[in-house]
């Protein structure tokens, strides 16, 4: 039955080549922990992606309750955490996942660096990877404000002060992020929400796609 559905689609859209590109590739011995346990260092990239998927899913559920305005943001988070069934787990996954994704990405970066995998012909993939790193840091920074509690607010105040101290573009950047050259308030929260939920995830998905297409095209770097 499944085969017939597949054939029916394949007849019309010729999906076998796409399927081949995505799924049918080798896992060489030197990256397979089943053969060499030390090869677990090659798992960090996959784990980063796994946690990213967790972040996207838990984030989607969080937006079912979260209200991005300064009157209700805090109350909605408190309600989610205290009253909603499994709300504490969903928010916990998003909270801890944010830290874990940074840790895994950091380890993945170190693995790629110390195995020299960024060298020719993989320069572009390294650049895209570092850009993903920056986007992730941006997601961490903008997401931190959203609960609108004390540490969220004051961490953002400090962060925006640092952005402001950059010469020439500093004040423009701050105004762009905060919505006002002076006030960090209602406008800042909605902007951070928009950046956290739409702008950066959009950029992230594009960069991840490029990252994966390149690794599929080139294959994983060979043994040292």
């Amino acid at each position, binding site marked *: 039955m499944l085969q017939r559905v597949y054939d029916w689609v394949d007849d019309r859209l010729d999906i076998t080549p796409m399927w081949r590109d995505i799924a049918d590739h080798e896992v060489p011995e030197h990256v397979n922990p089943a053969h060499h346990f030390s090869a677990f260092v090659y798992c960090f990239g996959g784990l980063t992606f796994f946690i990213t998927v967790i972040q996207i899913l838990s984030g989607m559920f969080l937006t079912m309750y979260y209200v991005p305005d300064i009157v209700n943001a805090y109350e909605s988070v408190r309600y989610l955490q205290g009253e909603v069934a499994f709300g504490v*787990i969903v928010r916990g996954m998003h909270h801890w996942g944010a830290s874990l994704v940074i840790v895994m990405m950091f380890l993945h970066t170190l693995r790629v660096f110390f195995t020299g995998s*960024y060298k020719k012909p993989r*320069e572009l993939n390294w650049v895209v990877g570092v850009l993903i790193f920056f986007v992730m840091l941006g997601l961490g*920074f903008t997401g931190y404000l959203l609960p*609108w509690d004390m*540490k969220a607010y004051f961490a953002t105040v*400090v962060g925006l002060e*640092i952005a402001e101290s950059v010469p020439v573009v500093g004040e423009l950047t701050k105004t762009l992020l905060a919505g006002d050259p002076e006030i960090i308030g209602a406008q800042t929260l909605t902007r951070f929400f928009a950046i956290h939920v739409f702008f950066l995830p959009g950029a992230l998905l594009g960069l991840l796609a490029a990252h994966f297409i390149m690794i599929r095209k080139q294959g994983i770097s060979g043994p040292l």
Partner: protein
Amino acid sequence: MHRGKGMKFVGDSRVPDNKKPNIPKDYSEFPGNTEAFWPNFLLKEWLVGAVFLIGFLCLTIAHPAPLERLADPTDSGYIPLPDWYFLFLYQLLKYEYASGQLTVIGAVIIPGLAFGALLLAPWLDTGPERRASKRPIATSLMVLGVLATVYLTWESVESHNWEEAEAQGEMLDEEEMEAAESVDMEAAGYEIYSEQGCIGCHGDQLQGSGAAGPPIFDVPYEPDDVADIAVNGIGEMPAGQFEGSDEDLQTLAEFISSGGNPEEGGGEEEESEE
């Protein structure tokens, strides 16, 4: 691939009408113990992922995500702290040569050089050698960068007063919340409370504001003592805060002493009855 004349398409589409068999490649001829990703390796990854997910869920249950009290932009005494992965930058900006007038060094030049070098690593380290031990400059710079980041983060964690910050950010518990909610904002005392500036440090519901002023909806003082404190100060609260008539002072003192409910008899007395 079929090219040129005689190509057949599916209907009037651009999809070529020639079927490719969907049989996975045979990896047994590849060098070493190569394994097919689909489905062999993916199943193993799936198992590892499931174990990881269980551990992760246990973490979220054992340590729920923290939430402090509602943001209060007027609380200037709060010790701010960014999330842990920005601590290295936060700490860097505390050093003399990277702060004040030289903030540009700490905020732009040092991180710019570090992250710029990271981004452009493939063009800074162009040799064909891949082993870390065979490219000492790149390796030592990276090790140095990682050590510096770890050290700065560590220093920042060390110098932060975690206990005080936690106390500053703590939420009111339910009893306190109720007491704060029940403050009578229509009372004459509340008007004086707000006009005399008490509200600035002790909050609009007598709930206090972290570092600046403690909550005062449940003070163990008689009205006379409260009046004395309002005029002469106590602890860190300076003297001369109240500048009004004696009559107003009496109303205010009774208002605060009663926990913001002068008409109902007040918090302190209620509690002693219980």
